[in-house]
């Protein structure tokens, strides 16, 4: 049948069969739409994918434009990496949790650091009071890092570290632990988040102003391309942008706009796009709307491939491949009837797998209440294992491709994200758009709309604004012992007494001189790390030279 016939037949169905049914039984809503305001039609047909060219727009797995996945065999070769984000209290306690997760079949580590570590303060800094060990593990020096990975061979695991402003220091500590284990840096696998732009826009753990932060980032790109070639030097993150309230389209647009800014900064610093491009990685959210999410992942892959090839002239196909980690959406979890969260996480994880993610964190059911307990984390990991081993969805590549709906939606998300990126380009790129508050304002607007939809009842959240029950709050929640702060301060005191003060001083002075000049800072940071300089000392030196970022508050 040709398209003309189809168009006629579709029109006949729409006004006839469908129209009559609607007249008798009106649909649940006047207009159906996804998070980004894209209208969801009652039916998708070949007419909706007319402008899609299979070879140009979809292609084959492992080939440009990577819509169907970055690997030729995808999960037929190997499942995604099951990587639960974990870390709390001390290095000893987190080390025990990592070993537990590895015993339970987890295949990669993901380190959560506490806020003082993420913002470059030692545990005994006055601003650290009350925060030590709370949202992650407290790391003050190489000594803590040695404990954190004690008994975990770093040539056998891949480790992701959620660390941004002080990413150089934590990467240097990881390299130094590996040295002590006899593992050379070129055998290390892992990722540092190292994405400062989304910290300014959505997550908040910035230290230095943008220019100096971009220098730290490009220093890492350069250092790793020569010394730690298998390391993912950045994880350009939409996750937190989405958690802050963005829509699916905004998540893709703002993340790739940040990516563009990093690529530009590195090229401006004299690097070749294909020297660092293959080590860029991404991090996305998996939210509730299953099909919108699958389409989002596919759209992001295609758009990035086109940007890297056409805008930056990348030649290495690895530079064009958008590889990404996914975490299910923490902001969708409810404190009410928390066991229901297991079901939400299952659907979100399914979206990530159908969207061909490279690694996945599944949230635990109790995360709207506290840090996850060990039982909850195990269920979250089992959720991934059930999808992998029992559901069959991993047995063929990109299984939803060719669905009229998925392809039309993939196309529309790509278009709308590209339009946003163009607007950001016109403002002067992501750093300028963040400085002006454009990106923050867009996210806030979406967050407020979402909340108002819940409060008006237009958006139903099961157990929250409908289907409520009287219930007791669950017991057995994990609580970090407040004594962790004191313990960590004592460890710091001992360390300062024990280490060779002169070597520390000399290494910090060298770091300062390098920061004032234009050397790559990584070798200097490594020297300071090896001398057991604390994180606060190293970040403090750079605070003195670089200054600190002061956001302009929009309110």
């Amino acid at each position, binding site marked *: 049948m040709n398209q003309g016939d189809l168009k006629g037949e579709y029109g006949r169905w729409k006004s006839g069969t469908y129209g009559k049914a609607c007249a008798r039984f009106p649909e649940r809503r006047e207009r159906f739409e996804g998070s980004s305001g894209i209208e969801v039609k009652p039916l998708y047909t070949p007419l909706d994918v007319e402008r899609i060219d299979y070879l140009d727009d979809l292609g084959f797995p492992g080939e440009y434009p990577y819509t169907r996945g970055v690997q030729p065999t995808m999960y037929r070769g190997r499942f995604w990496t099951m990587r639960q984000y974990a870390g709390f209290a001390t290095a000893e306690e987190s080390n025990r949790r990592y070993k537990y997760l590895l015993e339970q079949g987890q295949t990669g580590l993901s380190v959560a650091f506490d806020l003082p570590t*993420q913002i470059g303060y030692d545990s005994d800094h006055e601003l650290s009071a009350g*925060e030590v060990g709370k*949202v992650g593990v407290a790391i003050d020096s190489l000594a803590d890092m040695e404990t954190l990975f004690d008994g975990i061979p770093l040539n056998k695991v891949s480790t992701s570290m959620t660390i941004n402003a002080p990413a150089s220091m934590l990467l240097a500590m990881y390299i130094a632990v590996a040295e002590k284990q006899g593992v050379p840096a070129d055998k290390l696998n892992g990722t540092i988040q190292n994405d400062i732009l989304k910290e300014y826009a959505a997550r908040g753990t910035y230290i230095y102003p943008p220019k100096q932060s971009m220098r730290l980032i490009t220093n890492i790109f350069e250092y790793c391309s020569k010394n730690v070639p298998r390391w993912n030097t950045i994880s350009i993150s939409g996750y937190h942008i989405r958690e802050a309230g963005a829509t699916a389209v905004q998540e893709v647009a703002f993340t790739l706009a940040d990516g563009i800014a990093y690529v530009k900064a590195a090229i401006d610093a004299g690097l070749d796009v294909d020297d660092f491009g293959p080590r860029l990685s991404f991090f996305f959210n998996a939210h509730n709307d299953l099909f919108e999410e699958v389409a989002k992942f596919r759209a992001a892959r295609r758009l990035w491939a086109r940007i890297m090839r056409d805008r930056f002239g990348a030649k290495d196909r690895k530079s064009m491949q958008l590889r990404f980690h996914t975490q299910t959406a923490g902001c969708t979890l409810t404190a009410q009837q928390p066991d229901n969260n297991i079901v939400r996480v299952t659907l979100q994880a399914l979206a990530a797998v159908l969207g061909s993610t490279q690694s996945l964190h599944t949230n635990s059911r109790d995360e709207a209440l506290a840090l996850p307990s060990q039982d909850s984390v195990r269920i979250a990991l089992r959720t991934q294992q059930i999808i992998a081993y029992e559901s069959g969805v991993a047995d063929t590549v990109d299984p939803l491709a060719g669905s009229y709906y998925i392809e039309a939606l993939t196309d529309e998300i790509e278009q709308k994200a590209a339009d946003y990126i163009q607007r950001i380009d016109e403002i002067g790129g992501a750093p300028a758009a963040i400085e002006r508050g454009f990106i923050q304002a867009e996210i806030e607007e979406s967050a407020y709309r979402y*909340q108002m939809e819940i409060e008006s009842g237009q958006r139903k959240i099961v157990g929250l604004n409908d289907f409520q029950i009287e219930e007791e709050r669950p017991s057995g929640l994990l609580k970090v012992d407040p004594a962790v702060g004191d313990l960590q301060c004592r460890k710091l005191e001992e360390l300062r007494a024990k280490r060779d003060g002169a070597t520390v001083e000399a290494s910090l002075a060298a770091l300062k001189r390098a920061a004032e000049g234009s050397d790559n800072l990584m070798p200097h940071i490594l020297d300071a790390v090896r001398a057991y300089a604390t994180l606060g000392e190293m970040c403090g030196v750079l605070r003195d030279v670089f200054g600190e970022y002061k956001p302009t508050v929009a309110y």
Partner: protein
Amino acid sequence: MMDEGRKIRVLVAKPGLDGHDRGAKVVARALRDAGMEVIYTGLRQTPEQIVAAAIQEDVDVVAMSILSGAHNYLFPRVTQLLRERGADDVLVVGGGIIPDEDIPGLQECGIAAVFTPGTSTGDTVKFIRENIKR
């Protein structure tokens, strides 16, 4: 009771190092839409900074948000400093990921209400209107 015609003034504050401000910003906007005057401090405020801002801006309410677990340390510091500065007629409320078992202790320290995940902004507005102290 409130003077007729004077808008309720609220300081929405993020104490500590926590960067999660989606909730704080949504609440700030909802309070504003409900006719209150709202000042948002931005991230990473010390209790001293929050209290200084509250006094300088002559607010009726301080509404704090923490999702990092540092509430037991930071919330009571704010109420203590307000008392020391003679500003204990300011209504102080808090929100965030706060375990039920911590709530009675926080209330004893002068946090009038703790709003946990799932609270509607309408409930927060209502509580503030009904409990304002000056």
